[in-house]
C-alpha cells in the first residue's frame, strides 16, 4: 500500500491554461481562462460550478478529450508521475503514442452517465479485459482474473458472473461501480471523476462516495472531482476550486473556502442552497440576480461583474489578479485588493 508523505509533490500541475473554442462564423470563445490547478497524490480537488462554467472542459483537457474545434491556447499541464522529468500534456498531440500511454493508464476518467459511456454491445468484463490486454499486455485469462478481482474491490456482488453482464442488465449504482473498476484497472496515478454521482440516488451516491474515498486510501491516487453540488464537495474534497464562466474565481482548502468564502460568487453560491435548519431558524434564500451571460457576452474584466452585488468601477474592464489570502487560498476579486480609501468612498 503506497504511503503518502504529507508534503507529497504535485503529480499534475496545470498552469495558466486557456482553452479556446472556435467556430467558422463566430469569434473565438475562451471557455477556460488562465486556470491554475494542482493535483497531489492521495488528495481530492473538487472543481465546482454551474452549467457552462468550463469545469468539464477543463477536466477533459487533461486527457485531451476535447472536441475538434477546441484547442489549448496557452499554458501547460505538467504530469510528473515519478522521478523522470515531467511530461507537458498540453504539448502532446491528442492521438500521439505518449499520450495514449498515459490516457487510461496513468490518468483515467469516470463519467457522469455510465450507460452512455460504457459500450452497450460488450459485456462489462470484456471491456475491462481489453484495457488490461492493451495497457498491461496481459493474456486474456489473466486479464479476466484481474477484472474479477477489481469487481470485488469496487463491491460488485457475484463478480465472476457479473463480468458477463451487459451494461443494460445492471442498476445505475452497479454500472457506476463497473465504470470505476474500469478506471482503476491500471492503477492510475490520477483519477478524473466528472459528476460521477449526479445521476444517482442519494443512498447510492453515498455508497459511491464512500467507495471512492476508500479506493483513494488504498491506491493513493490524486483525484479531480467535478461536481455542481456543494454538499458533495464538502463530503469528499480536500481542496476546492470554484469556476464561473471559465474563470477559477476562488480556490483553496475546502475548510478555508467554506469557512470564509472570499469571492462574491462563492458567497452567493453558498447562500443559494437551503440550510438544514429548523423552521424557526429558516432564512429566505438569497439567489444570485439574473442568469449566467453567454460566453460571448462575458464582461472584459471579472466574469461575475454583471451579477455581482459589490461590483465597482474596475470590475467590468480590468480582470482581477489572483490574490493570495494565505494557506494556499486564492481568489480573483478586486474587492480583495481595494485600497482602504476607496472603501470609505
Amino acid at each position: 500500500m503506497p504511503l503518502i508523505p504529507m508534503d507529497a509533490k504535485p503529480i499534475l500541475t496545470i498552469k495558466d491554461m486557456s482553452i479556446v473554442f472556435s467556430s467558422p462564423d463566430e469569434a473565438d470563445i475562451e471557455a477556460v481562462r488562465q486556470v491554475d490547478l494542482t493535483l497531489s497524490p492521495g488528495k481530492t480537488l473538487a472543481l465546482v460550478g454551474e452549467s457552462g462554467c468550463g469545469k468539464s472542459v477543463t477536466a477533459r483537457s487533461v486527457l485531451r478529450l476535447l472536441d475538434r474545434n477546441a484547442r489549448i491556447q496557452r499554458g501547460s499541464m505538467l504530469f510528473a508521475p515519478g522521478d523522470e522529468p515531467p511530461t507537458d500534456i498540453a504539448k502532446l498531440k491528442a492521438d500521439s503514442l505518449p499520450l495514449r500511454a498515459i490516457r487510461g493508464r496513468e490518468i483515467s476518467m469516470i463519467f457522469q452517465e455510465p450507460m452512455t459511456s460504457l459500450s452497450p454491445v460488450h459485456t462489462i468484463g470484456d471491456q475491462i479485459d481489453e484495457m488490461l490486454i492493451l495497457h498491461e499486455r496481459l493474456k486474456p485469462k489473466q486479464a479476466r482474473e484481474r477484472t474479477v478481482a477489481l469487481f470485488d474491490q469496487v463491491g460488485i456482488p457475484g463478480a465472476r458472473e457479473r463480468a458477463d453482464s451487459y451494461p443494460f442488465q445492471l442498476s445505475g449504482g452497479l454500472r457506476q461501480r463497473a465504470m470505476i473498476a474500469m478506471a482503476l484497472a491500471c492503477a492510475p496515478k490520477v483519477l478524473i471523476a466528472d459528476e460521477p454521482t449526479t445521476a444517482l440516488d442519494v443512498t447510492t451516491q453515498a455508497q459511491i462516495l464512500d467507495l471512492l474515498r476508500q479506493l483513494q486510501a488504498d491506491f493513493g491516487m490524486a483525484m479531480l472531482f467535478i461536481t455542481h453540488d456543494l454538499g458533495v464537495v464538502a463530503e469528499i474534497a480536500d481542496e476546492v476550486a470554484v469556476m464561473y464562466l471559465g474563470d477559477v474565481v476562488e480556490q483553496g482548502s475546502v475548510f478555508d473556502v467554506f469557512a470564509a468564502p472570499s469571492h462574491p460568487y462563492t458567497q452567493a453560491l453558498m447562500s443559494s442552497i437551503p440550510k438544514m435548519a429548523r423552521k424557526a431558524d429558516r432564512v429566505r434564500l438569497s439567489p444570485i440576480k439574473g442568469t449566467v451571460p453567454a460566453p460571448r457576452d462575458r464582461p472584459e474584466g471579472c466574469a461575475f461583474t454583471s451579477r455581482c452585488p459589490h461590483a465597482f468601477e474596475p470590475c467590468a474592464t480590468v480582470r482581477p489578479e489572483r490574490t493570495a489570502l494565505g494557506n494556499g487560498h486564492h481568489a480573483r476579486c478586486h474587492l480583495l485588493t481595494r485600497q482602504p480609501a476607496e472603501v470609505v468612498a
Partner: protein
Amino acid sequence: MSTLLTVDHLSKHFLLSGGLFGKERRLDALTDINLTVEAGETLAIVGESGCGKTTLGRCIIQAQSSSEGRVVYHPKSGGDVELTALSKREIKPWRQDIRMIFQDPMSSLNPYMRVFDIVAEPLRIHRICKGRELEERVISTLEKVGIPAEAVGRYPHAFSGGQRQRIGIARALVLDPKLVIADEAVSALDVSIQAQVLNLLEDLKTEFGLTYIFISHDLGVVNYIADRVVVMYLGHVVENAPTEMLFERPRHPYTELLLDTLPIADPLRRKVRKTEVRGEIPYLGNRPTGCPFNTRCKYAEDRCRTEKPVLRPIAGMAQEAACHFAEQLNLKGAYDDAPVKEIA
C-alpha cells in the same frame, strides 16, 4: 385548515407482457396509499427513483388511471368530487383546479409554440376567455413569474432553463388553480437558479393562496419548502410527518438512511455515517415479503421479513410511520448542531 384532497387506499399496478409464452407479470407501482392534503400547505413527497412518487402525482391528477382506491377532491364550493370515478370529459373542469409543473423545462414546453400560446393554451382549451382579456391574463401571469411582456413572442429555445421553468409555472397558474403538483420542479436547475424558482414558488403560494404537492428527491430543498413530508419506498408510504418532526427524529429507518446520506454543504460536519449503506433498492417486481425495506434495514428482525407493517400514528403525534419498531428505535435526525468531527 380544511382538507383539500384525500387519497384513499390508492393502488396502481402495471401489467407487463411476459413475451410470447411467458406469463403476464404484475408490477405494483403504488400499494395502498392513504394521505390527505390540507388547504394551504406544502406537502412534499420524497423518495428515490422508482419509489412511485411521480406515479402518485400523476394518479392524483388522473394523468394516469389508478387501479384501485379513490382520489377525492374537496373544492371550496363544497361537495366531494371523486376524481377516480370520473370520465375523461367529466374530469376536465377539475383540471383547472389541479395543475402540474414538470421537471424538465426542456421537454415539457412545445418547441413549436410561442411562449404566449403555451401559456394561453389552457385558457383556450377550457374556454375561459379570449381576445383582449386572454391577452391581458397571459401577459400578467407571465409578468408575475418574471417573464417580461416583450418576450412573449419568442419560442422556448430562446430562454434559459430557469426562464423555461418560469414559463411552465405560468402555464400552471394561468387557470388560477387551487392545487399545484410540482414534480421535481427545481431538480434540473443550477443552484442559483433553483433558489430563484424556490423563492418564486413561495411568493406565488402566498399571493394566490395555493396548495402544493412538491415531489422531490432533494431533502435539503424539502426541509426548506415543505410543511409536511411523505416518504415513499417501493410504492409504499413509509412515513408521513410534519417536516420538523421528521427531520428532528425520523421514525422509519428508511427516512433515517435518506437523512444520513444527504450531503451537507459544510466540511466541518462531514458525515461519519452510522453504518455503511446496505444494498440497493430491489426491483419493483421482486419486492421482499414483509416490510419492503427489510432487505436494506439494519434494524430488521424476523418479524420484519414476514409481517408487513402498516402506516400508523406514533405515540399520539401527527407523525405516522410504517415500522414495527417505530417507538423503540431512536433514529437520528438531520439537525445536528454540533460539528460531528474535528478537522483531522
